[in-house]
């Protein structure tokens, strides 16, 4: 049985190129094409698909909104987002919204088939470069350790507090106002459910975060 594909992109020239790749691959079949988000939704109503490839930037209904609709109508259908924008700006957002993979268009020729193969069996696909970074970002909301809830910047401040530096010393070192560091400190305490600096130091040492 062939893998049934919905391909949505408003640029015919690129759509043709992508279809070319897919059709040259045995086992893949482009069942429907759409040139905007509304057409993609209409196609979804008429056909069964194994995977949907959506351009992030489409007229009438953009990729993100189309994705959200797809996820509410067919939550199990893997969606692969194609984009002209670099991964670091949009990949996280799209994956959080339910996409199974994110691929820049110029990478499509080399990675598309690999990506489809991965998402149709329930996996997720991003470029290897981003994978590591994303793994951290995506698990943030379901952290095993409180400190994983912190942003990079907050973590930096956490470590400095733990090493005994005062708020003003940290402000001076990081080249920002005392007010900002105070706010960061309260936010760290709140996120980690701690009440004072001693507890921060204790936590950091206990978890061996000072290296």
């Amino acid at each position: 049985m062939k893998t049934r594909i919905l391909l949505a992109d408003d640029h015919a020239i690129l759509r043709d190129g992508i279809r070319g790749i897919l059709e040259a691959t045995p086992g893949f079949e482009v069942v429907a094409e759409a040139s905007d988000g509304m057409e993609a939704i209409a196609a979804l109503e008429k056909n069964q698909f194994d995977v949907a490839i959506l351009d992030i930037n489409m007229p009438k209904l953009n990729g993100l909104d189309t994705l959200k609709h797809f996820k509410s109508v067919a939550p199990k259908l893997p969606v692969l987002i194609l984009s002209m924008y670099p991964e670091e700006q949009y990949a996280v957002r799209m994956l959080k919204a339910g996409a199974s993979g994110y691929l820049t268009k110029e990478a499509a020729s080399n990675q598309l088939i690999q990506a489809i193969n991965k998402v149709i069996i329930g996996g997720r696909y991003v470029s290897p470069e981003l994978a590591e970074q994303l793994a951290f970002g995506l698990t943030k909301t379901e952290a095993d350790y409180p400190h994983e809830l912190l942003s990079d910047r907050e973590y930096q401040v956490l470590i400095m507090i733990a090493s005994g530096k005062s708020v003003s010393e940290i402000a001076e070192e990081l080249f920002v106002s005392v007010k900002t560091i105070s706010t960061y400190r309260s936010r760290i305490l709140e996120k980690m459910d701690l009440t004072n600096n001693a507890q921060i130091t204790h936590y950091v040492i206990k978890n061996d975060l000072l290296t």
Partner: protein
Amino acid sequence: MSEERPGKIIIVEDEPFQARFLTLTLKKAGFEIIDVFDNGKANLDYLKNNPHDAELILMDIMLKGALDGIETAEAVKTNHDIQVIFLSGLTDDDVIDRANVSTPHTFLFKPVDPRQLVTSVLMGVRSHRLSKDLRESRTWFSRTLDNIQSAIITTDRVGNIIFRNKKALEYFPDFGLPQNMVEELLVSNREGQKINYREVIKLKGSLNLESVILQLPDRNIPVDILLASITRNERILGYVIDIIDISEKKAQQDAIQKYQIQLQEFSDNLRNIQERERIKIAREIHDELGQYLARLKIDISRLKLDIEDNTRLNDLESIADTLVKRVRKVSSDLRPKILDDGTILEALDWLSKEFSQSLPVSFFCTEEVLHLPQELKTDIFRIAQESLSNILKHARATLATIELSLDDNTIELVIRDNGIGVKKNNGQKKKKTMGVMGMKERARRWKGQLNIVSSDNGTTVTASFPFQETDN
């Protein structure tokens, strides 16, 4: 008498012997005798035709003819500014009282002592000249003051009006109660409260009230008021009040302000247009050019599969790759997509990462979520971007930070660097100033402020924007 002009005297005396005695005595003493008349009417006729000749008249009280000396003197006083000395053989108090009404310089009783005559006439001439000088200088001053555009009022030390120039009369044609005049003028000052002007003037010598609204019976006019004391030997004699109509100045200022607002609107408009154009061009380049390039790359990659020796195709593929990256960079430089789709926090975070390729830039934000109107977001972003560009170009810094905070309904953006500071007159001043002007304009259109503090240890740009966060 040697240094003075000889006094010009008229003698009115109907006794020839007496007239001759007077003439000779005075001529001998150096006076000029203009004429001798034996009756009052002849004297008055002469004065009518020669009003400015005589300085003093020696007038016999008992004259023949229609007018006696006293009546003649009264007529002289009414129409002329000439001193009169009465000559009288009578000692009747009633006559003297009657004569006094015409305010003569003095009386001489017959027989007249020659020395007393000369001395009295000399004093009379001097007194005439003094009062004439005084009147002339008064006229001179008041004419001068009348021709001044501002209203001048002088008062004595308790506030009674002593003098008003023409403009002051025009403003206050029937000024009833002079006692509280200054207070009256100042009731409508800016704070609506009265000022104890005397105390202020006593301390400072003068008091300047700018842009006071002066309430006239028929209209209100904006004025500057200058109050000053007139002192002599540290004693205050009175006050001078100078009221200057600044309607015209105000109108000019208003016009300038109007043009300034127009100019600001124009510049805001231009900036919006520029941003819109940037968005359009960025999208055009990115979405159109980019798609074609991506397609090109896809096809090259597929060709590679069909052809065995694909070295040249590899070259082509890497050119296509570079082109895609260039297009992305050009588009992002024009208008980063994150600015349209992301929050200001995401946009600034992205910006700090972009710049971090050349200079470590950390972004700190005291808010975790901040939703701003698109244009405000753009202006904050552009200020941060311009500041970082300046740091990169001029500051020779090794570190920079961006801070964004929201406090008391004010968004504050602070960009710091540890560079060499803003050097004055480094040849690039003008260009740099234009950039700073642009940043200030961006803050100004949100009623915000932008300040730059620079030292040898670096520069801090602080932009603050009043902002009311809405619930949605």
